[in-house]
Protein backbone atom coordinates (compact mmCIF):
# COMPACT_ATOMS: atom_id res chain seq x y z
CA UNK A 1 0.00 0.00 0.00
CA UNK A 2 2.84 2.41 -0.62
CA UNK A 3 3.88 3.89 2.68
CA UNK A 4 7.06 3.31 4.60
CA UNK A 5 8.23 -0.09 5.65
CA UNK A 6 10.39 -0.29 8.74
CA UNK A 7 13.19 -1.94 6.80
CA UNK A 8 13.25 0.87 4.29
CA UNK A 9 13.46 3.57 6.93
CA UNK A 10 16.30 1.77 8.69
CA UNK A 11 18.20 1.39 5.42
CA UNK A 12 17.86 5.06 4.58
CA UNK A 13 18.89 6.10 8.08
CA UNK A 14 21.94 3.84 7.81
CA UNK A 15 22.82 5.45 4.50
CA UNK A 16 22.51 8.88 6.10
CA UNK A 17 24.84 8.00 8.95
CA UNK A 18 27.31 6.38 6.58
CA UNK A 19 27.43 9.47 4.38
CA UNK A 20 27.99 11.83 7.29
CA UNK A 21 30.63 9.56 8.78
CA UNK A 22 32.48 9.20 5.46
CA UNK A 23 32.43 12.93 4.88
CA UNK A 24 33.68 13.88 8.32
CA UNK A 25 36.34 11.20 8.21
CA UNK A 26 37.65 12.38 4.85
CA UNK A 27 38.02 15.94 6.07
CA UNK A 28 39.87 14.61 9.10
CA UNK A 29 42.24 12.20 7.40
CA UNK A 30 43.20 13.79 4.11
CA UNK A 31 44.74 16.99 5.51
CA UNK A 32 46.87 14.79 7.77
CA UNK A 33 48.19 12.85 4.82
CA UNK A 34 49.61 16.03 3.31
CA UNK A 35 53.36 16.51 3.54
CA UNK A 36 54.53 18.34 6.64
CA UNK A 37 52.44 18.96 9.70
CA UNK A 38 49.65 21.21 8.56
CA UNK A 39 48.46 21.70 12.10
CA UNK A 40 51.77 23.04 13.35
CA UNK A 41 52.22 25.05 10.19
CA UNK A 42 48.80 26.52 10.68
CA UNK A 43 49.49 27.59 14.24
CA UNK A 44 52.82 28.95 13.19
CA UNK A 45 51.20 30.96 10.44
CA UNK A 46 48.60 32.23 12.86
CA UNK A 47 51.28 33.49 15.19
CA UNK A 48 53.52 35.01 12.55
CA UNK A 49 50.64 36.72 10.81
CA UNK A 50 49.96 38.08 14.25
CA UNK A 51 46.53 39.32 13.43
CA UNK A 52 45.22 38.51 16.86
CA UNK A 53 48.26 38.60 19.05
CA UNK A 54 46.49 39.48 22.25
CA UNK A 55 44.37 36.35 22.08
CA UNK A 56 47.02 34.10 20.60
CA UNK A 57 47.36 31.89 23.66
CA UNK A 58 43.65 31.44 23.94
CA UNK A 59 43.35 30.68 20.24
CA UNK A 60 46.07 28.08 20.35
CA UNK A 61 44.50 26.60 23.44
CA UNK A 62 41.09 26.47 21.78
CA UNK A 63 42.69 24.82 18.85
CA UNK A 64 44.53 22.26 20.90
CA UNK A 65 41.38 21.54 22.79
CA UNK A 66 39.33 21.14 19.62
CA UNK A 67 41.74 18.70 18.05
CA UNK A 68 43.36 17.26 21.14
CA UNK A 69 46.69 17.87 19.49
CA UNK A 70 48.71 16.19 22.18
CA UNK A 71 46.95 12.87 21.74
CA UNK A 72 47.93 10.14 19.28
CA UNK A 73 46.07 10.30 15.95
CA UNK A 74 43.49 7.63 16.68
CA UNK A 75 42.50 9.30 19.94
CA UNK A 76 42.30 12.60 18.10
CA UNK A 77 40.05 10.94 15.55
CA UNK A 78 37.63 9.57 18.12
CA UNK A 79 37.54 12.84 19.99
CA UNK A 80 36.86 14.57 16.72
CA UNK A 81 34.07 12.10 15.90
CA UNK A 82 32.58 12.61 19.36
CA UNK A 83 32.70 16.37 18.99
CA UNK A 84 31.09 16.12 15.56
CA UNK A 85 28.38 13.78 16.80
CA UNK A 86 27.52 16.21 19.58
CA UNK A 87 27.68 19.12 17.11
CA UNK A 88 30.43 20.69 19.17
CA UNK A 89 32.30 22.59 16.46
CA UNK A 90 34.05 24.92 18.88
CA UNK A 91 35.42 28.40 18.38
CA UNK A 92 36.52 30.32 15.35
CA UNK A 93 40.24 30.94 15.07
CA UNK A 94 40.07 34.26 13.32
CA UNK A 95 37.01 35.65 15.04
CA UNK A 96 37.74 34.31 18.51
CA UNK A 97 35.79 34.06 20.79
CA UNK A 98 32.84 33.66 18.39
CA UNK A 99 31.35 30.23 18.46
CA UNK A 100 31.18 28.61 15.04
CA UNK A 101 27.63 27.43 15.67
CA UNK A 102 26.50 30.99 16.26
CA UNK A 103 28.25 32.25 13.16
CA UNK A 104 26.63 29.58 11.03
CA UNK A 105 23.25 30.13 12.63
CA UNK A 106 23.40 33.79 11.61
CA UNK A 107 24.13 33.09 7.95
CA UNK A 108 22.23 29.85 7.50
CA UNK A 109 18.75 31.36 6.99
CA UNK A 110 20.04 33.36 4.02
CA UNK A 111 21.59 30.34 2.38
CA UNK A 112 18.58 28.14 3.00
CA UNK A 113 16.26 30.85 1.69
CA UNK A 114 18.30 31.41 -1.46
CA UNK A 115 19.11 27.78 -2.19
CA UNK A 116 15.68 26.46 -1.34
CA UNK A 117 13.82 28.93 -3.51
CA UNK A 118 16.29 28.66 -6.37
CA UNK A 119 16.44 24.88 -6.40
CA UNK A 120 12.69 24.41 -6.11
CA UNK A 121 12.00 27.00 -8.79
CA UNK A 122 14.53 25.55 -11.19
CA UNK A 123 13.17 22.07 -10.57
CA UNK A 124 9.61 23.17 -11.27
CA UNK A 125 10.37 25.35 -14.27
CA UNK A 126 12.85 22.92 -15.75
CA UNK A 127 10.53 19.96 -15.46
CA UNK A 128 7.60 21.93 -16.85
CA UNK A 129 9.64 22.98 -19.86
CA UNK A 130 10.92 19.46 -20.38
CA UNK A 131 7.46 17.96 -20.15
CA UNK A 132 6.04 20.49 -22.57
CA UNK A 133 8.84 19.78 -25.01
CA UNK A 134 8.00 16.11 -25.09
CA UNK A 135 4.25 16.62 -25.25
CA UNK A 136 2.78 16.10 -28.68
CA UNK A 137 0.26 18.88 -28.36
CA UNK A 138 2.81 21.50 -27.39
CA UNK A 139 2.94 24.38 -29.84
CA UNK A 140 6.06 24.45 -31.98
CA UNK A 141 6.88 27.88 -30.57
CA UNK A 142 7.95 26.46 -27.22
CA UNK A 143 10.27 23.95 -28.79
CA UNK A 144 13.16 26.34 -29.29
CA UNK A 145 13.33 26.77 -25.51
CA UNK A 146 15.24 23.53 -25.15
CA UNK A 147 18.38 24.44 -27.05
CA UNK A 148 18.45 27.77 -25.22
CA UNK A 149 18.10 26.31 -21.76
CA UNK A 150 20.56 23.57 -22.67
CA UNK A 151 23.17 26.14 -23.59
CA UNK A 152 23.20 27.32 -19.99
CA UNK A 153 23.30 23.84 -18.52
CA UNK A 154 26.91 23.30 -19.42
CA UNK A 155 28.07 26.54 -17.81
CA UNK A 156 28.77 26.70 -14.05
CA UNK A 157 26.42 28.87 -12.00
CA UNK A 158 29.07 31.28 -10.78
CA UNK A 159 30.01 32.19 -14.36
CA UNK A 160 26.43 33.04 -15.16
CA UNK A 161 26.52 34.94 -11.88
CA UNK A 162 29.50 37.04 -12.96
CA UNK A 163 27.81 37.84 -16.26
CA UNK A 164 24.50 38.71 -14.63
CA UNK A 165 26.32 40.89 -12.14
CA UNK A 166 28.10 42.69 -14.94
CA UNK A 167 25.06 43.28 -17.15
CA UNK A 168 22.25 43.84 -14.67
CA UNK A 169 24.09 45.41 -11.77
CA UNK A 170 27.02 47.21 -13.39
CA UNK A 171 25.80 48.11 -16.89
CA UNK A 172 22.07 48.52 -16.32
CA UNK A 173 22.06 49.16 -12.59
CA UNK A 174 18.78 47.29 -12.17
CA UNK A 175 19.91 45.22 -9.23
CA UNK A 176 22.27 45.76 -6.29
CA UNK A 177 25.85 44.48 -6.43
CA UNK A 178 26.06 42.82 -3.09
CA UNK A 179 24.52 42.02 0.26
CA UNK A 180 21.19 40.60 1.31
CA UNK A 181 19.16 43.79 1.88
CA UNK A 182 19.60 47.52 1.59
CA UNK A 183 21.62 49.14 4.33
CA UNK A 184 19.66 51.01 6.94
CA UNK A 185 16.59 48.78 6.71
CA UNK A 186 15.38 47.05 9.80
CA UNK A 187 14.66 43.37 9.27
CA UNK A 188 10.94 42.78 9.64
CA UNK A 189 7.90 41.65 7.77
CA UNK A 190 7.22 44.99 6.10
CA UNK A 191 6.90 45.35 2.36
CA UNK A 192 9.99 47.47 1.92
CA UNK A 193 12.26 44.99 3.63
CA UNK A 194 10.86 41.98 1.83
CA UNK A 195 11.11 43.81 -1.46
CA UNK A 196 14.71 44.62 -0.75
CA UNK A 197 15.48 41.01 0.12
CA UNK A 198 13.91 39.79 -3.10
CA UNK A 199 15.77 42.39 -5.12
CA UNK A 200 19.07 41.33 -3.60
CA UNK A 201 18.41 37.62 -3.99
CA UNK A 202 17.14 37.88 -7.54
CA UNK A 203 20.42 37.71 -9.45
CA UNK A 204 22.03 34.99 -7.31
CA UNK A 205 18.87 32.93 -7.55
CA UNK A 206 18.65 33.48 -11.30
CA UNK A 207 22.18 32.24 -11.83
CA UNK A 208 21.39 29.01 -10.00
CA UNK A 209 18.04 28.61 -11.76
CA UNK A 210 19.36 29.25 -15.26
CA UNK A 211 22.07 26.66 -14.84
CA UNK A 212 20.14 23.82 -13.29
CA UNK A 213 16.92 24.33 -15.25
CA UNK A 214 18.28 22.93 -18.49
CA UNK A 215 19.34 19.59 -17.08
CA UNK A 216 15.94 19.10 -15.46
CA UNK A 217 14.32 19.97 -18.77
CA UNK A 218 16.51 17.52 -20.64
CA UNK A 219 15.86 14.71 -18.17
CA UNK A 220 12.14 15.37 -18.04
CA UNK A 221 11.86 15.46 -21.80
CA UNK A 222 13.42 12.03 -21.98
CA UNK A 223 11.17 10.66 -19.26
CA UNK A 224 8.05 12.10 -20.85
CA UNK A 225 8.93 10.57 -24.19
CA UNK A 226 9.27 7.22 -22.48
CA UNK A 227 6.06 7.70 -20.52
CA UNK A 228 4.14 8.86 -23.59
CA UNK A 229 4.75 5.48 -25.16
CA UNK A 230 3.31 3.57 -22.19
CA UNK A 231 0.11 1.61 -22.60
CA UNK A 232 -1.65 3.48 -19.81
CA UNK A 233 -1.30 6.71 -21.76
CA UNK A 234 -3.14 5.16 -24.70
CA UNK A 235 -5.83 3.82 -22.41
CA UNK A 236 -6.18 7.24 -20.78
CA UNK A 237 -6.73 8.67 -24.23
CA UNK A 238 -9.25 5.96 -25.01
CA UNK A 239 -11.11 6.87 -21.83
CA UNK A 240 -11.72 10.30 -23.29
CA UNK A 241 -9.96 12.12 -20.47
CA UNK A 242 -9.10 15.74 -21.09
CA UNK A 243 -5.58 16.37 -22.38
CA UNK A 244 -4.81 18.34 -19.23
CA UNK A 245 -5.81 15.45 -17.02
CA UNK A 246 -3.74 13.00 -19.05
CA UNK A 247 -0.78 15.38 -19.06
CA UNK A 248 -0.77 15.83 -15.29
CA UNK A 249 -2.13 12.69 -13.66
CA UNK A 250 -0.87 10.15 -16.17
CA UNK A 251 2.12 11.83 -17.79
CA UNK A 252 3.89 14.15 -15.36
CA UNK A 253 2.87 12.12 -12.32
CA UNK A 254 4.82 9.14 -13.59
CA UNK A 255 7.63 10.87 -15.43
CA UNK A 256 8.56 13.02 -12.44
CA UNK A 257 9.55 10.07 -10.22
CA UNK A 258 13.06 9.46 -11.57
CA UNK A 259 13.56 13.22 -11.63
CA UNK A 260 13.02 13.37 -7.88
CA UNK A 261 15.65 10.68 -7.40
CA UNK A 262 18.00 12.68 -9.58
CA UNK A 263 17.26 15.74 -7.46
CA UNK A 264 18.57 13.93 -4.39
CA UNK A 265 21.73 12.91 -6.21
CA UNK A 266 22.33 16.42 -7.53
CA UNK A 267 21.82 18.18 -4.21
CA UNK A 268 25.42 17.86 -3.06
CA UNK A 269 26.81 19.33 -6.26
CA UNK A 270 24.22 22.10 -6.29
CA UNK A 271 25.05 23.05 -2.70
CA UNK A 272 28.74 23.22 -3.60
CA UNK A 273 28.05 25.39 -6.62
CA UNK A 274 25.97 27.83 -4.64
CA UNK A 275 28.91 28.49 -2.30
CA UNK A 276 30.63 30.18 -5.23
CA UNK A 277 27.49 32.06 -6.22
CA UNK A 278 27.28 33.54 -2.74
CA UNK A 279 30.87 34.67 -2.98
CA UNK A 280 30.34 36.32 -6.38
CA UNK A 281 27.36 38.26 -5.05
CA UNK A 282 28.84 38.88 -1.58
CA UNK A 283 25.68 37.28 -0.27
CA UNK A 284 26.12 36.78 3.49
CA UNK A 285 25.18 33.11 3.63
CA UNK A 286 27.16 30.08 4.70
CA UNK A 287 29.16 30.07 1.47
CA UNK A 288 30.33 33.60 2.02
CA UNK A 289 31.21 32.78 5.61
CA UNK A 290 33.25 29.88 4.29
CA UNK A 291 35.09 32.29 2.01
CA UNK A 292 35.84 34.50 5.03
CA UNK A 293 37.27 31.42 6.70
CA UNK A 294 39.47 30.71 3.70
CA UNK A 295 40.70 34.29 3.45
CA UNK A 296 41.57 34.31 7.16
CA UNK A 297 43.00 30.79 7.27
CA UNK A 298 40.35 30.03 9.85
CA UNK A 299 40.57 26.26 9.76
CA UNK A 300 38.14 25.49 12.54
CA UNK A 301 35.56 27.67 10.83
CA UNK A 302 36.13 25.98 7.46
CA UNK A 303 35.97 22.54 8.97
CA UNK A 304 32.88 23.40 11.01
CA UNK A 305 31.02 24.83 8.05
CA UNK A 306 31.87 21.91 5.80
CA UNK A 307 30.73 19.53 8.50
CA UNK A 308 27.38 21.31 8.62
CA UNK A 309 27.16 21.36 4.81
CA UNK A 310 27.69 17.61 4.75
CA UNK A 311 25.07 17.06 7.43
CA UNK A 312 22.66 19.48 5.78
CA UNK A 313 22.88 17.89 2.36
CA UNK A 314 22.57 14.41 3.86
CA UNK A 315 19.48 15.44 5.80
CA UNK A 316 17.93 16.86 2.64
CA UNK A 317 18.65 13.61 0.81
CA UNK A 318 17.25 11.61 3.72
CA UNK A 319 14.04 13.63 3.68
CA UNK A 320 13.73 13.10 -0.07
CA UNK A 321 14.34 9.37 0.34
CA UNK A 322 11.74 9.10 3.05
CA UNK A 323 9.09 11.01 1.14
CA UNK A 324 9.75 9.15 -2.08
CA UNK A 325 7.73 6.01 -1.22
CA UNK A 326 4.76 8.24 -0.53
CA UNK A 327 4.94 9.52 -4.10
CA UNK A 328 5.79 6.25 -5.80
CA UNK A 329 3.61 3.46 -4.40
CA UNK A 330 5.87 0.77 -5.90
CA UNK A 331 9.07 1.76 -4.19
CA UNK A 332 8.94 -0.22 -0.95
CA UNK A 333 8.58 -3.34 -2.98
CA UNK A 334 11.33 -2.64 -5.47
CA UNK A 335 14.04 -1.70 -3.05
CA UNK A 336 13.58 -4.39 -0.49
Amino acid at each position, binding site marked *: MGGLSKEYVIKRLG*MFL*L*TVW*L*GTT*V*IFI*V*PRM*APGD*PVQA*MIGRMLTEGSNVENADQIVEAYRERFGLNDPVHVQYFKYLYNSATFNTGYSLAFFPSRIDDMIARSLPWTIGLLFVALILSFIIGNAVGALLAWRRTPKMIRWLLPIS*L*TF*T*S*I*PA*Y*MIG*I*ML*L*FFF*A*FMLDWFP*YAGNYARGLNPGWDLEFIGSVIKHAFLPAMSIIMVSMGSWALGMR*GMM*ITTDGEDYMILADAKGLTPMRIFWRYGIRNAILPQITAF*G*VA*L*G*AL*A*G*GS*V*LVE*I*IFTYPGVGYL*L*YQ*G*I*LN*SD*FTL*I*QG*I*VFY*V*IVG*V*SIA*VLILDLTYPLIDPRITYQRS
Partner: protein
Amino acid sequence: MTAATNVFGTRSSRMAVILRLPWLNWKLVLGVGVLILMILMEFVGPVFWDTELARVGSVPTNMVPVWVEADKSLGFKEGSPDYPLGSESNGREMLALVLVATPRSLKVGLIAASLGTITGIILGFAAGFLGGWLDSSIRILSDAWMTIPGLAVLIVIASYVREFDINSMALVIAMFAWPGPTRIIRAQVLSMRERGYVQMAQISGSSVIDIMFKEMMPNLLPYLAATFTSTVSSSILAATGLEILGLGPTRIPTLGMTINNALRASAILRGMWWWWSFPIVMLVTIFMALFLMTIGLDEIANPRLRGIQQ
Protein backbone atom coordinates in the same frame (compact mmCIF):
# COMPACT_ATOMS: atom_id res chain seq x y z
CA MET B 1 26.88 -0.56 -33.04
CA THR B 2 26.99 -0.69 -36.79
CA ALA B 3 24.04 -3.04 -36.83
CA ALA B 4 21.87 -0.48 -35.11
CA THR B 5 22.63 2.15 -37.68
CA ASN B 6 21.72 0.10 -40.69
CA VAL B 7 18.18 -0.79 -39.73
CA PHE B 8 16.85 1.25 -42.59
CA GLY B 9 19.99 0.98 -44.56
CA THR B 10 18.71 -1.28 -47.29
CA ARG B 11 18.10 1.35 -49.88
CA SER B 12 20.23 4.18 -48.62
CA SER B 13 22.96 5.56 -50.78
CA ARG B 14 26.62 5.10 -50.02
CA MET B 15 26.86 8.64 -48.74
CA ALA B 16 24.01 8.13 -46.30
CA VAL B 17 25.69 5.04 -44.94
CA ILE B 18 28.89 6.98 -44.38
CA LEU B 19 27.03 9.78 -42.65
CA ARG B 20 25.39 7.31 -40.33
CA LEU B 21 28.66 5.95 -39.05
CA PRO B 22 27.96 6.35 -35.37
CA TRP B 23 31.25 7.82 -34.25
CA LEU B 24 30.99 10.51 -36.88
CA ASN B 25 28.26 12.23 -34.93
CA TRP B 26 28.72 15.95 -35.66
CA LYS B 27 28.33 16.96 -32.02
CA LEU B 28 31.06 14.60 -30.95
CA VAL B 29 33.38 15.62 -33.78
CA LEU B 30 32.89 19.33 -33.09
CA GLY B 31 33.45 18.90 -29.35
CA VAL B 32 36.58 16.81 -29.80
CA GLY B 33 37.91 19.24 -32.39
CA VAL B 34 37.56 22.24 -30.09
CA LEU B 35 39.25 20.44 -27.22
CA ILE B 36 42.14 19.30 -29.40
CA LEU B 37 42.66 22.90 -30.50
CA MET B 38 42.82 23.92 -26.85
CA ILE B 39 45.32 21.23 -25.94
CA LEU B 40 47.43 22.26 -28.93
CA MET B 41 47.54 25.78 -27.50
CA GLU B 42 50.13 24.59 -25.00
CA PHE B 43 52.53 23.70 -27.83
CA VAL B 44 51.48 26.12 -30.55
CA GLY B 45 50.90 29.11 -28.27
CA PRO B 46 54.57 29.81 -27.47
CA VAL B 47 55.46 29.57 -31.16
CA PHE B 48 53.56 32.62 -32.26
CA TRP B 49 53.10 34.48 -29.01
CA ASP B 50 55.34 35.39 -26.13
CA THR B 51 53.69 33.46 -23.32
CA GLU B 52 56.19 34.89 -20.86
CA LEU B 53 53.93 37.96 -20.90
CA ALA B 54 51.59 36.05 -18.60
CA ARG B 55 53.97 36.79 -15.74
CA VAL B 56 53.21 39.51 -13.24
CA GLY B 57 54.53 42.91 -14.22
CA SER B 58 55.63 42.01 -17.72
CA VAL B 59 53.43 44.63 -19.40
CA PRO B 60 51.88 47.95 -18.35
CA THR B 61 48.86 47.46 -16.10
CA ASN B 62 45.18 48.15 -16.88
CA MET B 63 45.41 48.29 -20.68
CA VAL B 64 42.11 47.92 -22.51
CA PRO B 65 41.79 45.53 -25.47
CA VAL B 66 43.06 47.09 -28.66
CA TRP B 67 39.65 47.63 -30.27
CA VAL B 68 38.25 49.52 -27.26
CA GLU B 69 38.69 53.16 -26.38
CA ALA B 70 40.18 53.54 -22.92
CA ASP B 71 38.30 55.52 -20.29
CA LYS B 72 41.18 57.49 -18.79
CA SER B 73 39.03 58.66 -15.88
CA LEU B 74 38.91 55.06 -14.63
CA GLY B 75 42.66 54.79 -14.88
CA PHE B 76 42.73 52.56 -17.97
CA LYS B 77 45.51 52.79 -20.49
CA GLU B 78 45.09 52.85 -24.25
CA GLY B 79 45.38 49.39 -25.80
CA SER B 80 48.24 48.43 -28.08
CA PRO B 81 48.41 45.96 -30.98
CA ASP B 82 51.30 44.36 -29.15
CA TYR B 83 48.90 43.36 -26.37
CA PRO B 84 45.63 42.83 -28.26
CA LEU B 85 43.48 41.63 -25.36
CA GLY B 86 44.76 44.23 -22.93
CA SER B 87 46.28 43.63 -19.52
CA GLU B 88 45.09 43.32 -15.93
CA SER B 89 46.04 45.17 -12.78
CA ASN B 90 49.04 42.99 -11.99
CA GLY B 91 50.62 43.64 -15.36
CA ARG B 92 49.82 40.29 -16.96
CA GLU B 93 49.03 40.29 -20.66
CA MET B 94 45.61 38.76 -21.26
CA LEU B 95 46.31 36.88 -24.50
CA ALA B 96 49.35 35.19 -23.04
CA LEU B 97 47.41 34.48 -19.88
CA VAL B 98 44.60 32.76 -21.76
CA LEU B 99 47.05 30.81 -23.93
CA VAL B 100 48.91 29.51 -20.89
CA ALA B 101 45.95 28.90 -18.61
CA THR B 102 43.47 27.18 -20.93
CA PRO B 103 45.39 23.97 -21.65
CA ARG B 104 46.23 23.76 -17.98
CA SER B 105 42.61 23.81 -16.87
CA LEU B 106 41.87 21.13 -19.41
CA LYS B 107 44.80 19.08 -18.17
CA VAL B 108 43.51 19.04 -14.58
CA GLY B 109 40.17 17.79 -15.81
CA LEU B 110 41.69 15.12 -18.02
CA ILE B 111 43.98 13.75 -15.32
CA ALA B 112 41.29 13.74 -12.62
CA ALA B 113 38.72 12.19 -14.93
CA SER B 114 41.15 9.52 -16.13
CA LEU B 115 41.91 8.51 -12.56
CA GLY B 116 38.23 8.61 -11.64
CA THR B 117 37.11 6.67 -14.69
CA ILE B 118 39.79 4.00 -14.31
CA THR B 119 38.78 3.52 -10.68
CA GLY B 120 35.15 3.48 -11.83
CA ILE B 121 35.85 0.82 -14.46
CA ILE B 122 37.63 -1.42 -11.98
CA LEU B 123 35.02 -1.02 -9.24
CA GLY B 124 32.06 -1.08 -11.64
CA PHE B 125 33.25 -4.26 -13.33
CA ALA B 126 34.07 -5.87 -10.02
CA ALA B 127 30.67 -4.99 -8.59
CA GLY B 128 28.61 -5.87 -11.65
CA PHE B 129 30.49 -8.99 -12.62
CA LEU B 130 31.42 -10.59 -9.34
CA GLY B 131 28.29 -9.55 -7.44
CA GLY B 132 27.66 -10.66 -3.88
CA TRP B 133 28.89 -8.72 -0.86
CA LEU B 134 31.48 -6.96 -3.00
CA ASP B 135 28.73 -5.56 -5.18
CA SER B 136 26.64 -4.35 -2.28
CA SER B 137 29.56 -2.69 -0.51
CA ILE B 138 30.73 -0.95 -3.67
CA ARG B 139 27.20 0.15 -4.43
CA ILE B 140 26.55 1.50 -0.93
CA LEU B 141 29.93 3.20 -0.79
CA SER B 142 29.52 4.95 -4.13
CA ASP B 143 25.96 5.98 -3.28
CA ALA B 144 27.06 7.47 0.01
CA TRP B 145 30.11 9.09 -1.53
CA MET B 146 27.96 10.72 -4.16
CA THR B 147 25.86 12.49 -1.56
CA ILE B 148 28.91 14.11 0.04
CA PRO B 149 29.19 17.64 -1.32
CA GLY B 150 32.52 17.24 -3.07
CA LEU B 151 33.44 20.88 -3.48
CA ALA B 152 32.95 21.55 0.24
CA VAL B 153 35.27 18.71 1.22
CA LEU B 154 37.77 19.76 -1.43
CA ILE B 155 37.78 23.23 0.10
CA VAL B 156 38.81 21.81 3.46
CA ILE B 157 41.55 19.74 1.92
CA ALA B 158 42.81 22.53 -0.29
CA SER B 159 42.87 25.03 2.52
CA TYR B 160 45.22 22.78 4.47
CA VAL B 161 47.35 21.83 1.50
CA ARG B 162 48.27 25.27 0.31
CA GLU B 163 51.08 24.30 -2.05
CA PHE B 164 49.04 22.72 -4.82
CA ASP B 165 50.38 21.90 -8.21
CA ILE B 166 48.34 20.72 -11.18
CA ASN B 167 48.93 17.04 -10.51
CA SER B 168 48.18 16.97 -6.81
CA MET B 169 45.04 19.02 -7.37
CA ALA B 170 43.93 16.55 -10.05
CA LEU B 171 44.63 13.70 -7.64
CA VAL B 172 42.51 15.23 -4.90
CA ILE B 173 39.67 16.01 -7.31
CA ALA B 174 39.76 12.44 -8.57
CA MET B 175 38.68 11.41 -5.07
CA PHE B 176 35.25 12.70 -6.00
CA ALA B 177 35.28 11.64 -9.63
CA TRP B 178 34.89 7.89 -9.25
CA PRO B 179 31.33 7.23 -7.96
CA GLY B 180 29.60 8.41 -11.15
CA PRO B 181 31.57 6.17 -13.52
CA THR B 182 31.32 3.29 -11.05
CA ARG B 183 27.54 3.46 -10.97
CA ILE B 184 27.16 3.71 -14.71
CA ILE B 185 29.62 0.93 -15.51
CA ARG B 186 28.05 -1.31 -12.87
CA ALA B 187 24.55 -0.77 -14.27
CA GLN B 188 25.72 -1.48 -17.81
CA VAL B 189 27.66 -4.56 -16.81
CA LEU B 190 24.63 -5.87 -14.93
CA SER B 191 22.32 -5.41 -17.89
CA MET B 192 24.87 -6.80 -20.30
CA ARG B 193 25.52 -9.85 -18.18
CA GLU B 194 21.93 -10.87 -18.76
CA ARG B 195 22.24 -10.59 -22.52
CA GLY B 196 22.63 -13.59 -24.68
CA TYR B 197 26.10 -13.20 -26.02
CA VAL B 198 27.75 -12.81 -22.64
CA GLN B 199 25.93 -15.83 -21.29
CA MET B 200 26.92 -17.76 -24.39
CA ALA B 201 30.54 -16.84 -23.78
CA GLN B 202 30.21 -17.95 -20.16
CA ILE B 203 28.66 -21.26 -21.09
CA SER B 204 31.34 -21.89 -23.67
CA GLY B 205 33.93 -21.53 -20.94
CA SER B 206 35.62 -18.24 -21.73
CA SER B 207 37.57 -16.75 -18.85
CA VAL B 208 36.20 -13.80 -16.93
CA ILE B 209 38.91 -11.50 -18.27
CA ASP B 210 38.20 -12.63 -21.81
CA ILE B 211 34.52 -11.95 -21.43
CA MET B 212 35.19 -8.53 -19.96
CA PHE B 213 37.52 -7.35 -22.65
CA LYS B 214 36.40 -9.19 -25.74
CA GLU B 215 32.64 -9.31 -25.29
CA MET B 216 31.67 -6.47 -23.00
CA MET B 217 34.22 -3.70 -23.47
CA PRO B 218 33.38 -2.90 -27.10
CA ASN B 219 29.75 -2.44 -26.19
CA LEU B 220 30.58 -0.41 -23.12
CA LEU B 221 32.80 1.95 -25.05
CA PRO B 222 30.26 4.66 -25.86
CA TYR B 223 29.00 4.64 -22.27
CA LEU B 224 32.55 4.82 -20.98
CA ALA B 225 33.36 7.70 -23.26
CA ALA B 226 30.22 9.57 -22.24
CA THR B 227 30.97 9.09 -18.55
CA PHE B 228 34.55 10.10 -19.03
CA THR B 229 33.51 13.27 -20.82
CA SER B 230 31.06 14.34 -18.17
CA THR B 231 33.61 13.52 -15.48
CA VAL B 232 36.17 15.74 -17.22
CA SER B 233 33.57 18.46 -17.15
CA SER B 234 32.75 18.12 -13.46
CA SER B 235 36.45 17.86 -12.57
CA ILE B 236 37.22 21.10 -14.38
CA LEU B 237 34.26 22.62 -12.63
CA ALA B 238 35.66 21.57 -9.25
CA ALA B 239 39.17 22.72 -10.14
CA THR B 240 38.05 26.17 -11.28
CA GLY B 241 35.84 26.37 -8.22
CA LEU B 242 38.86 25.87 -5.98
CA GLU B 243 40.93 28.29 -8.03
CA ILE B 244 38.25 30.96 -7.82
CA LEU B 245 38.31 30.58 -4.06
CA GLY B 246 42.04 31.15 -4.21
CA LEU B 247 42.77 27.55 -3.26
CA GLY B 248 44.31 26.35 -6.52
CA PRO B 249 47.92 26.39 -7.65
CA THR B 250 49.33 29.84 -6.98
CA ARG B 251 52.57 29.82 -8.92
CA ILE B 252 51.25 29.23 -12.40
CA PRO B 253 48.27 31.08 -13.84
CA THR B 254 45.04 29.14 -14.38
CA LEU B 255 41.71 30.33 -15.70
CA GLY B 256 40.11 30.07 -12.27
CA MET B 257 42.95 31.94 -10.61
CA THR B 258 42.59 34.73 -13.15
CA ILE B 259 38.90 35.03 -12.29
CA ASN B 260 39.79 34.96 -8.59
CA ASN B 261 42.25 37.83 -9.09
CA ALA B 262 39.64 39.73 -11.05
CA LEU B 263 37.03 39.25 -8.34
CA ARG B 264 39.41 40.26 -5.55
CA ALA B 265 40.35 43.37 -7.50
CA SER B 266 36.63 44.19 -8.01
CA ALA B 267 37.13 44.02 -11.77
CA ILE B 268 33.40 43.72 -12.36
CA LEU B 269 32.59 46.95 -10.59
CA ARG B 270 35.58 48.73 -12.09
CA GLY B 271 34.36 47.85 -15.57
CA MET B 272 37.44 45.77 -16.42
CA TRP B 273 35.38 43.22 -18.27
CA TRP B 274 38.32 41.94 -20.30
CA TRP B 275 39.96 40.66 -17.13
CA TRP B 276 37.29 38.13 -16.29
CA SER B 277 35.44 37.67 -19.56
CA PHE B 278 38.25 36.11 -21.61
CA PRO B 279 38.86 33.34 -19.04
CA ILE B 280 35.11 32.83 -18.79
CA VAL B 281 34.77 32.62 -22.57
CA MET B 282 37.47 29.96 -22.62
CA LEU B 283 35.85 28.00 -19.79
CA VAL B 284 32.42 28.25 -21.39
CA THR B 285 33.92 27.00 -24.65
CA ILE B 286 35.48 24.06 -22.82
CA PHE B 287 32.23 23.21 -21.04
CA MET B 288 30.18 23.56 -24.21
CA ALA B 289 32.59 21.34 -26.14
CA LEU B 290 32.43 18.71 -23.41
CA PHE B 291 28.66 19.00 -23.27
CA LEU B 292 28.37 18.54 -27.03
CA MET B 293 30.57 15.47 -26.73
CA THR B 294 28.41 14.06 -23.95
CA ILE B 295 25.25 14.52 -25.99
CA GLY B 296 26.89 13.10 -29.09
CA LEU B 297 28.15 10.07 -27.17
CA ASP B 298 24.74 9.62 -25.58
CA GLU B 299 23.20 9.46 -29.01
CA ILE B 300 25.77 6.88 -30.03
CA ALA B 301 25.12 4.83 -26.91
CA ASN B 302 21.32 5.05 -27.22
CA PRO B 303 20.37 5.12 -30.89
CA ARG B 304 16.78 5.59 -29.79
CA LEU B 305 17.47 9.18 -28.76
CA ARG B 306 18.41 9.99 -32.31
CA GLY B 307 15.13 8.76 -33.67
CA ILE B 308 13.09 10.78 -31.22
CA GLN B 309 14.83 13.99 -31.98
CA GLN B 310 13.80 14.05 -35.61
